[in-house]
């Protein structure tokens, strides 16, 4: 039988160390909503999304109450809209109509975000893909809950540099369109390499075309729990450190597995995956950077950070994999700057630069995340940053992503506030040298030699 010590440990994790389930995300296939008339497409999408996820919020609340574990976000992801709109959308504004429909459906459901305003263009773009990408600034301006993502490269296809170039401009335009709200539109736009089909986390969640009709994916959290566990092994050897991380990751993931299974049963929707990522929040103590500091770094970004993060990420996976029947999504340690108080402090202390963050993304999911840069950064430089990050993913056969905010009207040293889970971002300096002539080249960077495995 369960002991008092075990009960106290679990409840301490929840009450004092911010243990929560970050999100229950229902993936919904929209392929049957395709229609030559964009208005019909919108009607079908609204009907299907609001019907399929009708009980999501109530069920999540019920599970939260039953087990005393907070479920922070309820979300929906849908099939990439560039595919769904391909038959009916002939101008960018047709796609914007779909964005508005998704936003309306999300508000009807009472969920936190809806993802999948997306295009998969890792090799090249169809007309619909390009129209959707060009509609992103407007779509993110007029909606509140819609999240957008573009897969612009993969290990198998190489990098679509035409898309990367266009996205640099679209990110700038999105920042400009949402200037009066801290350029928040960019916080809801992710550029991927090797995007997973089953990611429950925003802004990059979409329901991949390889998925079934609907699926439940769950993202766990727990940086605070991990940091607290590591407090007890200060000064211990690496073996002890690794064992502690694995055991803690196991416990965190088991809670996610329980919630996922319950949600699946109650909603009659198949369980997909648990995403093992340690996801920080701006709350005090809920920080991945704090874990790195607890491992022995003065600040995140100090020499040794990449090694510490590599160790953390690997051990979290090793501990988490056994705790769940199916692991997927991004499954790594997230290192967003604005959403992690420890990261913000590291930037403010001068310990953490964009270049170091780039190095850190080589060993963890997902990438350059929630980083504010000066508003006057040229589009080509943003494309260059994206290309660098996607190249890391392409060569290392892993997911990488860029969610960067060229904060309109802001310069280095300023601060951008988004509020809620998105937090606040110090504006970081960017290398001033130009990559204009490189980025303006047409075509794509071919797939690396190690992609030819057949």
């Amino acid at each position: 039988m369960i002991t008092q010590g075990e009960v106290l440990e679990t409840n301490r994790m929840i009450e004092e160390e911010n243990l929560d389930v970050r999100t229950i995300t229902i993936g919904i296939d929209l392929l049957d909503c395709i229609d030559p008339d964009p208005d019909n497409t919108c009607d079908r999408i609204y009907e299907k999304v609001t019907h399929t996820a009708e009980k999501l919020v109530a069920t999540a609340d019920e599970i939260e109450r039953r087990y005393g574990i907070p479920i922070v976000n309820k979300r929906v992801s849908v099939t990439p809209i560039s595919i769904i709109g391909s038959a009916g959308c002939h101008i960018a504004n047709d796609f914007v109509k779909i964005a508005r429909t998704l936003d309306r459906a999300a508000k009807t459901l009472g969920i936190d975000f809806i993802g999948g305003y997306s295009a998969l263009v890792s090799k090249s773009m169809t007309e619909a893909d390009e129209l959707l990408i060009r509609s992103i600034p407007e779509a993110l301006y007029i909606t509140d809950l819609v999240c957008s993502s573009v897969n612009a490269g993969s290990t198998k296809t190489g990098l679509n540099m035409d898309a990367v170039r266009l996205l640099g401009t679209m990110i700038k335009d999105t920042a400009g369109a949402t200037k009066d709200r801290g350029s928040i539109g960019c916080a809801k736009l992710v550029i991927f390499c090797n995007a997973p089909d089953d990611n429950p986390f925003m802004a990059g969640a979409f329901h991949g075309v390889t998925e079934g009709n609907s699926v439940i994916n769950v993202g766990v959290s727990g940086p605070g729990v991990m940091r607290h566990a590591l407090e007890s092994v200060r000064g211990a050897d690496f073996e002890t450190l690794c064992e502690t991380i694995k055991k803690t990751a196991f416990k965190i993931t088991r809670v996610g597995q329980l919630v996922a299974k319950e949600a699946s049963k109650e909603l009659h929707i198949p369980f997909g995956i648990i995403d093992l990522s340690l996801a920080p929040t701006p709350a005090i103590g809920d920080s991945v950077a704090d874990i790195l500091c607890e491992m022995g770094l003065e600040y995140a970004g100090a020499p040794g950070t990449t090694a510490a993060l590599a160790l953390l990420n690997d051990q979290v996976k090793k501990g988490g994999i056994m705790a769940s029947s199916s692991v997927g999504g991004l499954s790594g340690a997230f290192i967003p700057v604005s959403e992690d108080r420890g990261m913000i402090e590291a930037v403010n202390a001068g310990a953490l630069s964009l270049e170091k963050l780039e190095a850190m993304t080589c060993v963890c999911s997902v990438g350059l995340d929630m980083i504010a840069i000066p508003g006057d950064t040229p589009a080509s430089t943003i494309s260059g940053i994206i290309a660098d990050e996607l190249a890391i993913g392409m060569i290392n056969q892993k997911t990488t992503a860029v969610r960067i905010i060229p904060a309109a009207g802001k310069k280095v040293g300023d601060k951008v506030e988004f509020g809620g889970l998105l937090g606040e971002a110090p504006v970081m300096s960017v290398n001033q040298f130009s990559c204009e002539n490189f980025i303006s080249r047409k075509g794509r960077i071919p797939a690396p030699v190690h992609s030819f495995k057949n």
Partner: protein
Amino acid sequence: MQKKVVITVVGKDTVGIIARVCTVLSGHGINILDISQTIVSGFFNMMMITDISKSDLSFDEMQDILSETGKEIGVDIRAQREEIFDMMHRI
């Protein structure tokens, strides 16, 4: 089949906390399977494993009643389904 609920009571120690909680539970047909209690630096800490399968209350009603009882005697009473602890601490 048993439907196990873990009840935890935390708060300042006073006379009769256990008696009060047990009275509420027995009044609603909730069976206590295990009980342990400690005082940690002046704070009362109790855990009970109960079976609510024969209770006249739903889980939600039981939570509400216990929460009210806790307020009356100045302690925090939580009720959680046992599975979360089983999942986390048992392979």
